[in-house]
């Protein structure tokens, strides 16, 4: 196996990824039992469905690597999606609307970052608070209703294809490579490892820890804004409950992917695999027509099994 292109630092050496094992087992299992599973159309389907979660899980990986957390990301996505929809309906300009959604992401990211870095409130609590604020704003703006009447041009972003590849997959792949480049090939990424691993090292190197932390959460907010574009395009509407609970899905995908909550030990590719594993599991169980209650339990089992395998590896 060639490891060219991978930095050793990118792969947590102590753990052989449990997520890879889980993913292979799931794919093999579903491939054998469900004839519709291993078709190009279905694979495209799984990947497309996973894109929104991936857009949240990527920044979540970065945030968790700094020993932080962002519980507000799902609610920010929701609110950004509503602002996007309302703006595009009011002005008719998708560009303006998209900028507005990014603006919402930016504001919440900035808010989270400032509360965490400057006011010294722990990330869990900060983002639990801003989760409530974003959710409340969503409800207040919409009064609980869906926002509909969005021009078709927005929907195209989700349903369109280029060279036979669905747009969302292209966007998600782009987001992945951008995050990868950010994390492994820029100063920002280097300092993310340092934020989680040794903040004193950053201080001594003359880099502002506060500034970096704020940037990390702004990155999260902006990605939520991007995800809002996909979500709005997907639903062709905006709804105040659309993103509820997605933050926990994203955190679970990151954890399943082998990123640890301590010392800046993160693995971006693992997050990608984690997101796909969750998508494969849901899709495969649907294809097998497994009762929904059993599906619910299976998702829990997936999370625990993947971490259990990682834990066993780590102990050696």
């Amino acid at each position, binding site marked *: 196996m060639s490891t060219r292109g991978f930095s050793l630092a990118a792969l947590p050496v102590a753990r052989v990824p449990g997520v890879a094992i889980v993913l292979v087992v799931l794919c093999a299992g579903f491939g054998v039992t469900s004839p519709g599973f291993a078709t190009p159309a279905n694979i495209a389907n799984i990947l497309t469905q996973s894109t929104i979660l991936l857009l949240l899980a990527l920044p979540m990986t970065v945030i968790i690597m700094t020993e932080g957390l962002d519980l507000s990301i799902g609610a920010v996505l929701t609110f950004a999606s509503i602002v996007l929809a309302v703006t595009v309906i009011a002005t008719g300009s998708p560009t303006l609307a998209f900028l507005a959604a990014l603006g919402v992401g930016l504001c919440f990211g900035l808010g989270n970052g400032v509360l965490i870095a400057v006011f010294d409130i722990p990330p869990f609590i900060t983002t639990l608070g801003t989760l409530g604020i974003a959710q409340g704003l969503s409800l207040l703006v919409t009064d609980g209703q869906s926002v509909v009447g969005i021009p078709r041009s927005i929907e195209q972003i989700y349903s369109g294809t280029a060279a036979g590849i669905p747009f969302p997959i292209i966007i998600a792949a782009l987001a992945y490579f951008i995050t990868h480049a950010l994390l492994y090939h820029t100063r920002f990424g280097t300092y993310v490892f340092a934020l989680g691993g040794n903040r004193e090292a950053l201080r001594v190197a003359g880099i502002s820890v506060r500034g970096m932390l704020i940037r990390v959460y702004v990155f999260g907010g902006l990605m939520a804004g991007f995800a809002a574009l996909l979500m709005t395009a997907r639903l062709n509407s905006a709804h105040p409950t659309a993103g509820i609970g997605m933050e926990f899905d994203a955190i679970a995908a990151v954890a399943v992917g082998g990123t640890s909550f301590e010392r800046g030990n993160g693995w971006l590719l693992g997050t990608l695999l984690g997101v796909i594993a969750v998508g494969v599991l849901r899709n495969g169980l*649907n294809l097998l027509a497994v009762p929904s209650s059993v599906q619910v339990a299976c998702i829990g089992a997936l999370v625990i099994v993947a971490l259990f395998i990682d834990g066993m590896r780590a102990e050696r």
Partner: protein
Amino acid sequence: MKYLAISVTAVLTALFSGPAFADDETIAVFTKNQTNPYFQAVRVGTETAAKALGVKVIQYVPTKPDSIPEQLSQVEDVIVKKPNAIVFIPVDYKALVPAVEKINAAGIPVTNITDRSAGGNFVAFVGADDYSIGLSVARRLLKAIGGKGNVIILEGVKGSLTSTNRVRGFNDAMKENPDVKLLASQPANFQRLNALQVMENLMQSFPSIDGVLAANDPMAVGAIEALEGANRKALVIGINGSKEAVELIKSGKLLASGDFNGFIQGCIGTEIAVRNLHKQPTPKEVMLKPIVIDKTNFTPYEMPVEQRACPTLEQIVSN
């Protein structure tokens, strides 16, 4: 090595083999969640009808209750499986329009029940009119309190079609009775515990309450519990005609419940889907009559849904 591969495959097959699709016609049924008894009644209705009609139904329910993205994903997954027909309750009547369009594009006939989708092509819509049920059951309560007094409305989830229409019915009934005063109209999210606490709080502000209009049965029951807990008396109505509501009507604690018959909607939805598959003529729309269940007519509703038989389409339409 080869044997290993074979045995691994065997184990995996054993692990993953769920109920396989038979060769007969299959209908995919979409409901909103696994927790509300109403949707359970719908599912039982579809299964009862399917058994009678010799088809197979498969239930799809979001793992997270009422999740829009998840129902959309399930629709996409189901399109891969290509069932013969679909019976569809959208989690949100506006947000799921893209899902319906995808079903349309895949050429799978889809019957809409319960919540009328805001867009897409359907074989038919089967439902009950939330507005008129709300109106008639509220009229029943307002008559019982003598056309005057103080009333509280417990709304469902804000923005949901069901809640909006039912509450509109309540309010129109109130307009017919100018002597009735509306004290408060607060959402309790269709949930019992929420209704209980909202009611407890409202009772602090209002020493005299004569009637409670709840937009579904669990909220009505929550209100009854709150009233009993405070040793106060007020007439309460709910909507759905659930098993629990019928028992409470029998014991006199609940005045009435609007019959929003999920079981029949499930039956008829499935029957229309099957008829359409067999190229038989189907109506474009079936609306159940608004029936108010109260002390005078609750007896047929005491039978558990699992034991009921589906009425035929003709029975319902001719009614």
